């Protein structure tokens, strides 16, 4: 069976559209909200949902996602419950790809093989482990591949040509280009620099290129989409949900629909 991520990117390419990838933390703003939020995001035009697995020590994340992770853990969210949520989501949505994004230790505590088997069964399509760079991820990438799941990797402005090629050898589905130096939710973004680096990545990696970090609104998303295949939005959405926790599904739906509209609006230039 083809991986849902590939199916989705093929369809978008045929339609001349760009992928929109929202990130939310599993278990925030509440454990019960995660499933309806996922459905709302899918209805509002999400092409892939990145579901954050909360971790006690999210070293690569800025304050917004750190706090989100802390809240989720305080409410009792676990990797097991995250997988169960994905399985439930698959009960009514068999098309929208789901990528789990998190840190290595919860996966290692569960056992890597067991985790991959359970993720495949739950209907997960890709896994991005922030602290598994390619040199530490070959075995894990092979375990995922054996189950038809895609290993998703990060690339940074500081990644050398050699490293981009190393990531290219293992990456499936898409690579996630981190458009800023720093942690998630940081600073402002230079679209010119992004364009240059994405072009460099395309020369060495033959999967789709998603761009994230620093994208907060429709206008920025649209400019980034002109140079990338996919736009990833995390901290801004997580913050919007934190601001109105009681209306999480409605807020996420409205919020993403606006970005979707900006991405799909006809060009007049």
């Amino acid at each position, binding site marked *: 069976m083809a991986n849902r991520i590939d199916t989705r990117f093929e369809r978008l390419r045929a339609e001349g559209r760009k992928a929109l990838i929202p990130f939310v933390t599993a278990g925030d703003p509440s454990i019960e909200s995660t499933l309806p939020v996922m459905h709302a995001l899918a209805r509002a035009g999400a092409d892939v949902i990145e579901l954050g697995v909360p971790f006690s*020590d999210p070293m690569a994340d800025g304050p917004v996602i750190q706090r989100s992770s802390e809240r989720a853990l305080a409410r009792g969210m676990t990797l097991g419950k995250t997988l169960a949520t994905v399985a439930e989501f698959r009960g009514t949505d068999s098309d929208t790809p789901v990528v789990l994004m998190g840190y*290595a230790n919860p996966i290692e505590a569960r056992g890597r093989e067991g985790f991959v088997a359970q993720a495949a069964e739950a209907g997960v399509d890709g896994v991005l482990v922030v602290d598994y760079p390619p040199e530490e991820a070959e075995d894990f990438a092979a375990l995922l591949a054996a189950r038809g799941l895609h290993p998703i990797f990060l690339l940074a402005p500081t990644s050398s040509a050699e490293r981009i090629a190393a990531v290219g050898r293992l990456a499936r589905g898409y690579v996630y280009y981190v458009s800023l130096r720093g942690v998630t939710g940081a600073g402002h973004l230079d679209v010119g620099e992004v364009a240059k680096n994405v072009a460099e990545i395309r020369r060495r990696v033959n999967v789709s290129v998603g761009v994230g970090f620093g994208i907060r609104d429709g206008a920025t998303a649209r400019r980034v989409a002109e140079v990338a295949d996919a736009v990833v939005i995390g901290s801004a959405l997580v913050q919007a949900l934190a601001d109105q926790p009681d209306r999480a599904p409605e807020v996420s739906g409205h919020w993403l629909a606006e970005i979707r509209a900006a991405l799909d609006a006809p060009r007049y230039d």
Partner: protein
Amino acid sequence: MKPYDLPDARGHFGPYGGIFVAETLIAALDELKAQYARYQHDPEFIAEFERELKHFVGRPSPIYHARRWSEQLGGAQIYFKREDLNHTGAHKVNNCIGQALLARRLGKPRVIAETGAGQHGVATATVAARYGLECVVYMGSEDVKRQAQNVYRMKLLGATVVPVESGSKTLKDALNEALRDWVTNVEDTFYIIGTVAGPHPYPMLVRDFQSVIGKECLWQMPEVAGRQPDAVIACVGGGSNAMGIFHPYIPHEQVRLIGVEAAGDGLDSGRHAASLSRGVPGVLHGNRTYLLQDSDGQIIETHSVSAGLDYPGVGPEHAWLKDIGRAEYVGITDEEALRAFHDCCRIEGIIPALESSHAIAYATKLAPTLGRDQILLVNLSGRGDKDMHTVAERSGMEWQ
């Protein structure tokens, strides 16, 4: 035993160590690795390092025979390696000088550090002042409260101390925050990690700089005691003072290496910081090692009377030495450490750090079980001035 030559090129000690960081940090680590490879055998770099250790730190630190205490215990002879006599009062400064010299050669004008008890922060602030580098120290807000005196020392030395409010607000969270700073400011910033943990090349680099401790012991022990010790004992939090004294002794197979972890309220109390004795392997802060974690892989809060041992992980080389059986790891409770602290003050006239008191406590437990001709060498890694308030509070003594 096969020649011991670890880590491998990718920073592995058996299954431990490695480079488990986000892609955003890889370039900085690659640069550090390349520069360290260039300078570690450079005669000029080594000469400068040794000159600084001699004239700024006051090395070599002496080895002292705790004769009266050994007499009273009636067994093995206990010797102290006096790292407490270093400038800044602990072993931490050895490593800070090495890394600051690297920072200067890399042209980085700004250094950052994480600190728990504040000893590594003070040592970093000290060398930053010495070399004219800007210095920012991350410290959990809980530790800022507990270690007010060290916070003030860092400020006197010109450093900025940033209290960290995330997570458990202790050392591990300070480390997370320092990593975030580094990711953001990697162009002009050098991260001076204080222990033998973190992503490669840090565990190797910190070990190499701290190995001066063990190397001195190798020539001092025959002079002072007539021969090498039967056992070397050191406390283990992250494990830098232990690795510094252990590493040169690894090929000396007849010398037992004993690491002493903080058993807090007891190894089975659930309130301790004994990662090697009670943890399981996992991935945190850039390396694979033994970690104190729950069944879902979340890192749990640790406890020790000594802030410097209060860390849920441990350097990956200790994990490997444990697995291959070259070193043994034991636990000493808060109470045992405090008793050794007081005894050391009164019997030997030395006020040891609470961290070092764990190693001393184990030595005084072991000594009576051994013959009088046996020799125990304890790394007295720091002095206890910083612990006055904690000890007074715990002992119910009046501060004045």
